[in-house]
C-alpha cells in the first residue's frame, strides 16, 4: 500500500529542484527566472502546468512561446493586460474575429501613427486614424 505523506511535510514545487520532471518540462522557459519569482507566482505557474496537458497542441505551443515574455512584464503591466483580456473575453465570437482584424490593421499603421495612439493624441478624424 502506498504511504501518503502528511500535510505540511514539505512544500513541493516551491523550489525548481522540487518540481516533478513533467513540471520542469512544461515550465522550462521559466527556469532562469524561477528563483526570482515569489511564492504566489510559483504556485500560479504550477497550477498552469497542471492544466497544460489538457490543452490543445496549438495553445500549448503559444504558452511555451509566451511564458518568458509574460514573466518579464512588471506586475502593473500584467494587471493591465489581464484587465484588457477580461474585457475582450466578454465579446461575442464574431467580435473576436474583428479583434484579430483590428490588431492586424493596427500593426500595419505607420509607427508615428501608433505612437500618437499610444499617447492618446490621435482622433477619429485625423489622417491615418482608424475607420469608424
Amino acid at each position, binding site marked *: *500500500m*502506498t504511504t*501518503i*505523506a*502528511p*500535510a*505540511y*511535510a*514539505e*512544500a*513541493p*514545487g*516551491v523550489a525548481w529542484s522540487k518540481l516533478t520532471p513533467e513540471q520542469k518540462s512544461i515550465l522550462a522557459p521559466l527556469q532562469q527566472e524561477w528563483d526570482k519569482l515569489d511564492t504566489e507566482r510559483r*504556485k*500560479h505557474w*504550477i*497550477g*498552469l502546468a497542471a*492544466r497544460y496537458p489538457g490543452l490543445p497542441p496549438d*495553445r*500549448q505551443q*503559444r*504558452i511555451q512561446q*509566451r*511564458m518568458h*515574455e*509574460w514573466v518579464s*512584464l512588471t506586475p502593473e*503591466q500584467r494587471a*493591465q*493586460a*489581464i484587465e*484588457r*483580456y*477580461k*474585457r*475582450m*473575453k466578454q*465579446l*461575442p465570437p464574431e*467580435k473576436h474575429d*474583428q*479583434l*484579430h482584424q*483590428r*490588431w492586424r*490593421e*493596427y500593426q500595419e*499603421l505607420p509607427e508615428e501613427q*501608433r*505612437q500618437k*495612439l*499610444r499617447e*492618446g493624441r*490621435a482622433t*477619429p478624424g485625423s489622417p491615418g*486614424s*482608424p*475607420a*469608424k
Partner: protein
Amino acid sequence: MNENEVAERIVTQIDQDLADLPQPIVQKLQAARLAAVAAYRPGRPLWGHSRTGNALNGWGLGRGLNARLVLPAAIVLASLTGLIYWQMSSHHEEELDTGLLAGELPIHAYTDPGFETWLKHSNYAQSQQ
C-alpha cells in the same frame, strides 16, 4: 487512476495550498487554535451543562451556546471562508492567465495602450457600451 493515487494527488494539492497560505490567514488559524485550546477544560462538556445526562442538555440547546466556544468557532469559520475565497480568486487568475497566454492575440496586444485607443475608435468600443 486508483484510490491511492487520487488520495496522493489530493494530499499533494493540500500540501501546496497550505504551504502557500497568505500570512494573515495563517495567523488567524493559529489564533483560532490557541483560543480553542485555551478554552478547553478536561472533563467539562463542550456545550453548556450536562450533569443531568440528558442529550439535549448535554448539547446545551436549552441554555444557549457556550460563548467560550462560539468565538473560536466563528474565527475558524471566518478563516475558512477567507481561505476558500482566496483559493477561488487565485484559481480564477490562473484561468485568466492561461487564456491570455494561449489566446490568438499576442501578449503585446494587451499591453500596448495604442491598440486599446485604436479599438476605442472602432466597433469594439461600441460593443462595450
